[in-house]
């Protein structure tokens, strides 16, 4: 069978989306002193916009980018043909079912399988977009269960700054503002680390990367 049309379009679409994101946000990566992560890892980031993983993807060096897959909610990314083209074909997302009732597969097992296949993951442990005034919502337990299942993998905190101002909820015209993506040093789960301790530790590692909010009146 010939490749479907969408497969041919995926590459140029990825380039176009990244170029557009760069034109609007002039996004810049800030790496930790230890440098760019070398191997497979899980990037866990704050989540305020549907464009979050695009910015992380855009700043990763191409060799890392190729094997990095975002983890995203199937409900949103399968909603329309366009969403599913961008989510599945362009960014090769690991689509998980967020609704427990509708699940046919275990999301943690899906993510672990993607890691075993050699991919890095982009994960938003808050579960849903943060529309509150707090900088970060409490983490869901997914990151803990995944880390427990694959304890050897590096967990890299990533703070995405300003994208919530570029594209506030409910708006569809992006405002050009400069965004930064700050990567922290990798951490790992301890052998006997409790869930609450681990989630508190990862949350504070992520929050430590957030800059003092400049100019954001919200």
């Amino acid at each position, binding site marked *: 069978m010939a490749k479907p049309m969408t497969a041919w379009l995926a590459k140029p679409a990825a380039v176009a989306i990244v170029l557009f994101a760069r034109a609007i946000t*002039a996004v*810049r990566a800030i790496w930790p002193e230890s440098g760019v992560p070398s191997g497979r890892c899980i990037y866990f980031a704050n989540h305020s916009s549907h464009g979050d993983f695009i910015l992380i993807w855009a700043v990763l060096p191409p060799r890392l980018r190729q094997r990095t897959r975002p983890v995203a909610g199937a409900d949103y990314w399968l909603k329309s043909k366009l969403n599913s083209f961008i989510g599945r074909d362009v960014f090769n997302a690991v689509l998980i079912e967020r609704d427990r009732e509708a699940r046919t597969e275990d999301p943690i097992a899906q993510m672990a399988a993607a890691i075993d296949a050699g991919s890095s993951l982009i994960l938003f442990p808050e579960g849903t977009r943060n529309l509150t005034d707090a900088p970060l919502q409490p983490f869901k337990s997914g990151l803990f269960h995944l880390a427990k299942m694959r304890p050897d993998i590096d967990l890299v905190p990533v703070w995405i700054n*300003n994208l919530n*101002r570029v594209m*506030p909820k409910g*708006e569809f*015209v992006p*405002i*050009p*503002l*400069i965004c930064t993506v700050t990567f922290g040093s990798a951490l790992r789960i301890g052998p006997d680390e409790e869930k609450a301790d681990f989630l508190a530790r990862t949350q504070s590692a992520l929050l430590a990367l957030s800059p*003092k909010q*400049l*100019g*954001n*009146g*919200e």
Partner: protein
Amino acid sequence: MSAASSDLIHLVLGIFGVLIVASVIGYVLQRRLSPDGSNAAIENLNARIKAWWAMVILIGIAFLAGRTGVILLFAFCSFAALREFITLTNTRRADHWALAAAFFVALPLQYYLLWAEEYGIFSIFIPVYAFLFMPIIAVLRGDTERFLIRIAEVQWALMICVFCASHVPALLTLHIPGYEGRNVLLIAFLVIVVQLSDVLQYVWGKLFGRHKIAPKLSPSKTVEGFVGGVVSATLIGAALWWITPFTPLQAGLLAFVITLMGFFGGLVMSAIKRDRGVKDWGHLIEGHGGLIDRLDSVVFSAPIFFHLVRYWWSQ
């Protein structure tokens, strides 16, 4: 046009010569004083020289592409500058449509009016129409929290980044008898004098600087740097009279005005940065910081230079 292009070629060769000398000095300094890249000042100097090459080549290409190329270049500069500026302001969700209008309506329209040579509307479009309609769009969302501050910030951003910056390419629209087809050299004159003044103030300051001129605003600026930079840039401006419609004396006087405006413009923009707690406007240009860090003195001098030339020389 041939006289203009031969002048332009001489100018470009001269600038390349200066940059080659600067690159050689930077290289020697690096080999002698910072072979392992440990001297931050020298590394920064070399990054700046490299960025100068890129900027000169970019402006050169725009000049070759003619009027449209120059207008597009400055429209892009306005876009990037506005993006840096708005990033540091107190925007709220209710400003969304007003900001979208600033970026996607006011900015392109201002440059379109310039391209269409509609001087009457070009010169008042932002201070009249944009300044009145933008708060109207914002107020419709009903959010009064810090309303005056939010509106004032965006208006000032439009003024600096779009209105003032667009007066550099506006020099192309002047009709100066006996200077037809050479207006691009006026832009070259303005940009060279302002930027050299910045560079020379830095050099004089590094060599002889003792007394700080504005310690609260810009701790690196010194009286010696200011005087040396302004005097030498004024003399260079006078020596560049042959690319302008001015006599050497007039060229020197205009260069003097340009350098003063540039200096004070730099101080004003420094004050805004300090107010916002940042060191640079952004990271667009390696070694220099953001685009506004490089453009601040140009935007303050451009409208004044434009109007002086328009009043006394153009028809």
